[in-house]
């Protein structure tokens, strides 16, 4: 019995952390058709921001929930201004530029932060369920992911900004002729995506080794999940993370992590083969 509860918690945690890692990429890809290969490095920056500000005495929760998204959001805003803005509509070129950006950020982080930055421990402690210790921070990650998704839904569905964003996504020309400036929408979107990645990095910081190259472990998995999710940002991210994260965790439990990862990737391939525009490409036409 205790094993079942622990297993369910673990699956929920894996799904939540996958969704969290994907959220920033999903926003940017879904709204702008930009494949941001520097996504993993945004997460890395969020991690470093959190760790450094926590070490400087900022309360950990503020570092994770406020400073990390803020700092990476600002970085994202600047990057959009300097680089990405000039490449809209050229998906392939943005890939090259963001790959360059990814290399640049890893290099800069190595030069500025180095490999010896002391990390922070996960707060909240743990509880015991039967024979197993379970981290309360895992539960916090699940909670915060739900909160982020609900908040995104609210922004997209119930605010003026969300309406404009959805409009611009479905038909950019129409939106722009109705007076919405695409440049501004893109700027806001990219900044928001970066902030979400920063938040993910902040949340994962107490659970992972924060080093300059940590981003590489996330980018491919996030990219695959987002594409498998399809056009609709929220539903796509949730269903894809749910299916892929769930299958991968269960196979990891049953066999081992290699098979877990392979199962995730195979599932993505099969899903895409039969739903060529992603899970939400056919069934959900809406933009939320």
């Amino acid at each position, binding site marked *: 019995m205790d094993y079942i509860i622990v297993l369910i918690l*673990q699956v929920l945690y894996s799904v939540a952390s996958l969704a969290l890692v994907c959220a920033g990429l999903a926003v940017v890809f879904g709204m702008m058709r930009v494949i941001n290969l520097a996504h993993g490095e945004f997460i890395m920056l969020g991690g470093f921001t959190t760790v450094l500000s926590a070490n400087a005495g900022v309360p950990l929760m503020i570092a994770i929930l406020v400073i990390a998204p803020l700092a990476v959001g600002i970085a994202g805003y600047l990057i959009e201004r300097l680089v990405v803005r000039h490449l809209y509509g050229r998906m392939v070129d943005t890939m090259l530029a963001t790959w360059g950006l990814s290399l640049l950020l890893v290099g800069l982080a*190595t030069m500025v932060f180095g490999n010896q930055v002391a990390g922070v*421990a996960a707060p909240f402690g743990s509880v015991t369920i039967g*024979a197993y*210790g379970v981290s309360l921070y895992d539960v916090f990650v699940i909670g915060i992911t739900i909160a982020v998704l609900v908040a995104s839904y609210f922004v997209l569905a119930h605010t003026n900004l969300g309406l404009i964003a959805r409009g611009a996504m479905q038909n950019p020309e129409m939106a722009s002729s109705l007076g919405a400036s695409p440049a501004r929408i893109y700027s806001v979107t990219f900044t928001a995506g970066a902030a979400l990645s920063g938040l993910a990095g902040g949340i994962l910081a107490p*659970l*992972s*080794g924060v080093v300059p190259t940590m981003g590489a472990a996330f980018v491919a998995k996030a990219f695959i999940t987002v594409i498998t999710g399809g056009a609709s940002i929220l539903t796509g991210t949730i269903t894809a993370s749910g299916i892929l994260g769930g299958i991968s965790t269960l196979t990891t439990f049953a066999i081992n992590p*290699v098979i877990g990862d392979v199962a995730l990737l195979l599932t993505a391939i099969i899903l895409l083969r039969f739903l060529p525009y992603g899970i939400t490409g056919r069934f959900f036409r809406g933009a939320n």
Partner: protein
Amino acid sequence: MKQSRRTFLKSTVAVGAASLAGPALIGTAHAADDTIKIANITDVSGGLDIYGQPQVACLELAVDEVNANGGVLGKQVELIKYDPQSNIQLYTQYATEAATREQVSAVFGGVTSASREAIRPLLRRYNTLYFYPTLYEGGVCDRNFFCNGSTPAQTIEVLMPFVMEKFSGKKVYVIAADYNYGWISAKWVKHYTEANGGEVLDTEYFPLDVTDFGATIKNIQAAKPDILFTLLVGGNHMSFFRQWASAGLAGKIPMASSDFGVGNEHIVLTPEESNGMVAAYAYMQELETTANTAFLERLRAKFGDDTPYVNELAVSAYNAFYHWVGGVERAGTTDRLAVIKALEDGTPFNGPGGRSVIDPRTHHAILDVHIGEVENNAFRVLESHSQRPPSDTAQFCDLLSNPNDNQQYVIGTKA
């Protein structure tokens, strides 16, 4: 007609060979200058920089020291540095360049076993001495090659009985990185656990890009081992210790490792997460010997605030250079075979971690091994074992009776 064509071919080949040899001859002329060139090929950028940077720092220090004392054979040592950026293909290119264009007397470097095996055959073919300063799974048997780091049997042999006694435990659970180092070290853990009357409950292997250890943490709790032996490697695997601690398990099950700390794990992790980990190395920065204190002072004087945390890998690079210097001085020449013979005479070098002797049969180092416990982001040295031989490699490798051997044996545990 036939004859003339053959003559023509011959002369073309000769011209070709001459033009190939041309730069080489010029290179030798260069080497006859008043400096002796050596090359260092170590990753200081890309994913492996965490291991490479301290190694390069210590090698630079050693070169500076020797040069300040008049150099080798009265000549200054010129260190040519290459950064292969954690990319194996660049190892191949740089090793060829160092050996054939720069005509260096020796090459130091290589971090992963893959990078070492990419350049070791090349350097042997080009008759250039090769020193490998990283702890690895053992088994390389090549007269042109010298390993100055420890191998699993050297450290695990003393570590296993120590932790089994300290924690009075018999049941061991092993989690290891999924590559040769992890697999072979896990065999040695099993071997020495059983030799000391214990048993290994289970061994799990993790690819280097795994960051989520939730499933394993549950498995370990279900198995209830007395000791958890970790052979995890790299930044991603640090997540294990974080997730372990956040599940409230820090300190619940004692942990031991033969590689925790060389990737700065005990610095990046918090004290709550890493305290109590017991590890064994041929060097720990916290050793309180006069040799080590003086060494650290010199390092600090050279690098100031940029001084890296020094681990066994870095000190092995330092030792490797001094072994080479000693070999050249004793041989009286940089000629490769003469230096190899001189290095095989068993002359010790007293480095920061203690005495290091090159075992003539395996070309691996006989080292002092120190057991330490992590305490507030540093190791506390608990006990030292003097002069541990590389017994794992020695099972297969005897270069004295078989000097032309040239391969990496996959080490079993038939000891």
